[in-house]
Protein backbone atom coordinates (compact mmCIF):
# COMPACT_ATOMS: atom_id res chain seq x y z
CA UNK A 1 0.00 0.00 0.00
CA UNK A 2 2.81 2.39 0.98
CA UNK A 3 4.65 1.56 -2.24
CA UNK A 4 1.53 2.35 -4.25
CA UNK A 5 1.09 5.72 -2.54
CA UNK A 6 4.77 6.50 -3.10
CA UNK A 7 4.38 5.61 -6.78
CA UNK A 8 1.41 7.97 -7.12
CA UNK A 9 3.30 10.76 -5.33
CA UNK A 10 6.32 10.27 -7.60
CA UNK A 11 4.16 10.23 -10.71
CA UNK A 12 2.34 13.39 -9.61
CA UNK A 13 5.67 15.07 -8.87
CA UNK A 14 7.20 14.11 -12.20
CA UNK A 15 4.09 15.08 -14.13
CA UNK A 16 3.88 14.82 -17.88
CA UNK A 17 1.63 11.80 -17.92
CA UNK A 18 -1.94 11.45 -18.98
CA UNK A 19 -4.73 9.07 -18.05
CA UNK A 20 -5.53 7.07 -21.15
CA UNK A 21 -8.10 4.79 -19.57
CA UNK A 22 -11.59 5.22 -20.93
CA UNK A 23 -14.36 5.29 -18.36
CA UNK A 24 -16.79 2.53 -19.30
CA UNK A 25 -20.24 3.89 -19.98
CA UNK A 26 -22.02 0.57 -20.46
CA UNK A 27 -23.02 -1.22 -23.64
CA UNK A 28 -24.62 0.98 -26.26
CA UNK A 29 -28.35 0.51 -26.64
CA UNK A 30 -29.22 -1.46 -29.75
CA UNK A 31 -32.58 -0.85 -31.33
CA UNK A 32 -33.98 -4.18 -32.50
CA UNK A 33 -36.34 -4.15 -35.43
CA UNK A 34 -39.27 -6.52 -35.24
CA UNK A 35 -41.04 -8.17 -38.16
CA UNK A 36 -44.59 -8.98 -37.00
CA UNK A 37 -44.85 -12.12 -39.16
CA UNK A 38 -41.75 -13.48 -37.38
CA UNK A 39 -43.18 -13.23 -33.88
CA UNK A 40 -45.41 -15.49 -31.80
CA UNK A 41 -47.40 -14.41 -28.79
CA UNK A 42 -49.06 -11.24 -27.61
CA UNK A 43 -47.23 -7.92 -27.93
CA UNK A 44 -48.37 -7.15 -24.38
CA UNK A 45 -46.49 -10.18 -22.99
CA UNK A 46 -44.40 -9.69 -19.86
CA UNK A 47 -41.53 -11.73 -21.27
CA UNK A 48 -40.00 -11.36 -24.71
CA UNK A 49 -37.62 -14.01 -25.99
CA UNK A 50 -35.57 -12.89 -28.97
CA UNK A 51 -33.91 -15.75 -30.81
CA UNK A 52 -31.02 -15.12 -33.21
CA UNK A 53 -30.73 -18.28 -35.26
CA UNK A 54 -29.28 -19.81 -38.42
CA UNK A 55 -31.36 -22.27 -40.43
CA UNK A 56 -28.29 -24.13 -41.62
Amino acid at each position, binding site marked *: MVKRILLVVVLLAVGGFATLLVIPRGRAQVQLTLEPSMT*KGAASSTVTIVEFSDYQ
Partner: protein
Amino acid sequence: MKEYDGRVRLVFKDLPLPFHELARPAHEAARCAGEAGTFWPYHDRLFQEQPAFERAELVGYAADLGIDRVSFTRCLDERRFAAAVEADVSQARALGITGTPTFLVNGRQVVGAQPIEAFRSMIDDALKTP
Protein backbone atom coordinates in the same frame (compact mmCIF):
# COMPACT_ATOMS: atom_id res chain seq x y z
CA MET B 1 -45.35 -21.42 -25.60
CA LYS B 2 -48.87 -22.64 -24.81
CA GLU B 3 -48.29 -22.87 -21.07
CA TYR B 4 -47.24 -19.19 -21.07
CA ASP B 5 -50.02 -18.06 -23.38
CA GLY B 6 -50.39 -14.29 -23.24
CA ARG B 7 -47.31 -13.87 -21.08
CA VAL B 8 -44.44 -14.75 -23.43
CA ARG B 9 -43.67 -13.49 -26.90
CA LEU B 10 -41.09 -15.11 -29.19
CA VAL B 11 -39.28 -13.01 -31.77
CA PHE B 12 -37.21 -14.71 -34.46
CA LYS B 13 -34.17 -12.86 -35.82
CA ASP B 14 -32.01 -13.90 -38.77
CA LEU B 15 -28.39 -14.69 -38.14
CA PRO B 16 -27.06 -16.70 -41.12
CA LEU B 17 -23.47 -17.55 -40.29
CA PRO B 18 -20.91 -16.56 -42.95
CA PHE B 19 -19.53 -20.09 -43.37
CA HIS B 20 -23.00 -21.50 -44.13
CA GLU B 21 -23.22 -20.50 -47.77
CA LEU B 22 -26.81 -21.68 -48.27
CA ALA B 23 -28.11 -20.10 -45.10
CA ARG B 24 -28.62 -16.56 -46.34
CA PRO B 25 -30.92 -17.53 -49.25
CA ALA B 26 -32.85 -19.72 -46.81
CA HIS B 27 -33.34 -16.77 -44.44
CA GLU B 28 -34.47 -14.57 -47.31
CA ALA B 29 -36.83 -17.35 -48.48
CA ALA B 30 -38.40 -17.59 -45.03
CA ARG B 31 -39.16 -13.88 -45.13
CA CYS B 32 -40.72 -14.36 -48.58
CA ALA B 33 -42.88 -17.07 -47.00
CA GLY B 34 -43.71 -14.61 -44.22
CA GLU B 35 -44.92 -12.15 -46.81
CA ALA B 36 -47.28 -14.91 -47.98
CA GLY B 37 -48.46 -15.41 -44.39
CA THR B 38 -46.66 -18.70 -43.69
CA PHE B 39 -43.44 -17.71 -41.94
CA TRP B 40 -43.62 -20.20 -39.06
CA PRO B 41 -44.55 -23.31 -41.09
CA TYR B 42 -41.76 -22.46 -43.54
CA HIS B 43 -39.34 -21.80 -40.66
CA ASP B 44 -40.17 -25.25 -39.21
CA ARG B 45 -39.73 -26.89 -42.61
CA LEU B 46 -36.27 -25.34 -43.04
CA PHE B 47 -35.13 -26.75 -39.72
CA GLN B 48 -36.48 -30.16 -40.72
CA GLU B 49 -34.75 -30.09 -44.09
CA GLN B 50 -31.41 -28.48 -43.25
CA PRO B 51 -29.05 -28.21 -45.05
CA ALA B 52 -31.08 -28.89 -48.24
CA PHE B 53 -31.39 -25.22 -49.23
CA GLU B 54 -30.75 -25.16 -52.95
CA ARG B 55 -32.98 -22.73 -54.82
CA ALA B 56 -35.29 -25.44 -56.25
CA GLU B 57 -35.68 -26.94 -52.78
CA LEU B 58 -36.57 -23.57 -51.22
CA VAL B 59 -39.20 -23.03 -53.92
CA GLY B 60 -40.49 -26.59 -53.44
CA TYR B 61 -41.00 -26.10 -49.68
CA ALA B 62 -42.97 -22.95 -50.44
CA ALA B 63 -45.13 -24.73 -53.02
CA ASP B 64 -45.81 -27.50 -50.49
CA LEU B 65 -47.27 -24.84 -48.19
CA GLY B 66 -49.51 -23.54 -50.94
CA ILE B 67 -47.48 -20.41 -51.67
CA ASP B 68 -47.71 -19.25 -55.25
CA ARG B 69 -44.58 -20.54 -56.97
CA VAL B 70 -44.19 -17.59 -59.36
CA SER B 71 -44.49 -14.82 -56.80
CA PHE B 72 -42.26 -16.70 -54.34
CA THR B 73 -39.59 -17.23 -57.00
CA ARG B 74 -39.76 -13.55 -57.91
CA CYS B 75 -39.31 -12.61 -54.25
CA LEU B 76 -36.29 -14.90 -53.98
CA ASP B 77 -34.68 -13.82 -57.24
CA GLU B 78 -35.00 -10.12 -56.62
CA ARG B 79 -33.65 -10.68 -53.10
CA ARG B 80 -36.50 -8.64 -51.69
CA PHE B 81 -35.50 -9.26 -48.10
CA ALA B 82 -31.71 -9.19 -48.39
CA ALA B 83 -31.50 -5.85 -46.59
CA ALA B 84 -33.84 -7.00 -43.81
CA VAL B 85 -31.71 -10.10 -43.16
CA GLU B 86 -28.58 -7.96 -43.19
CA ALA B 87 -30.20 -5.58 -40.70
CA ASP B 88 -30.70 -8.50 -38.29
CA VAL B 89 -27.07 -9.55 -38.77
CA SER B 90 -25.94 -5.99 -38.01
CA GLN B 91 -28.08 -5.87 -34.88
CA ALA B 92 -26.59 -9.18 -33.70
CA ARG B 93 -23.10 -7.82 -34.31
CA ALA B 94 -23.90 -4.66 -32.36
CA LEU B 95 -25.01 -6.85 -29.44
CA GLY B 96 -21.80 -8.89 -29.63
CA ILE B 97 -23.70 -11.99 -30.76
CA THR B 98 -21.60 -14.23 -32.98
CA GLY B 99 -23.00 -17.74 -32.50
CA THR B 100 -26.35 -19.40 -32.95
CA PRO B 101 -28.70 -19.93 -31.42
CA THR B 102 -28.45 -16.97 -29.06
CA PHE B 103 -31.47 -15.92 -27.04
CA LEU B 104 -32.33 -12.71 -25.24
CA VAL B 105 -34.81 -13.36 -22.45
CA ASN B 106 -36.01 -9.87 -21.52
CA GLY B 107 -32.56 -8.74 -22.60
CA ARG B 108 -30.64 -11.42 -20.70
CA GLN B 109 -28.33 -13.17 -23.15
CA VAL B 110 -28.31 -16.97 -23.31
CA VAL B 111 -25.95 -18.66 -25.76
CA GLY B 112 -26.54 -22.09 -27.26
CA ALA B 113 -29.39 -24.55 -27.33
CA GLN B 114 -30.83 -25.00 -23.85
CA PRO B 115 -33.09 -27.64 -22.33
CA ILE B 116 -36.70 -26.56 -21.97
CA GLU B 117 -36.29 -26.53 -18.16
CA ALA B 118 -33.66 -23.79 -18.47
CA PHE B 119 -36.07 -21.61 -20.43
CA ARG B 120 -38.89 -22.37 -18.01
CA SER B 121 -36.70 -21.25 -15.13
CA MET B 122 -35.64 -18.03 -16.89
CA ILE B 123 -39.20 -17.24 -17.94
CA ASP B 124 -40.54 -17.87 -14.44
CA ASP B 125 -37.83 -15.58 -13.00
CA ALA B 126 -38.68 -12.88 -15.54
CA LEU B 127 -42.39 -13.18 -14.77
CA LYS B 128 -41.67 -12.69 -11.05
CA THR B 129 -39.54 -9.58 -11.65
CA PRO B 130 -41.66 -6.47 -11.15
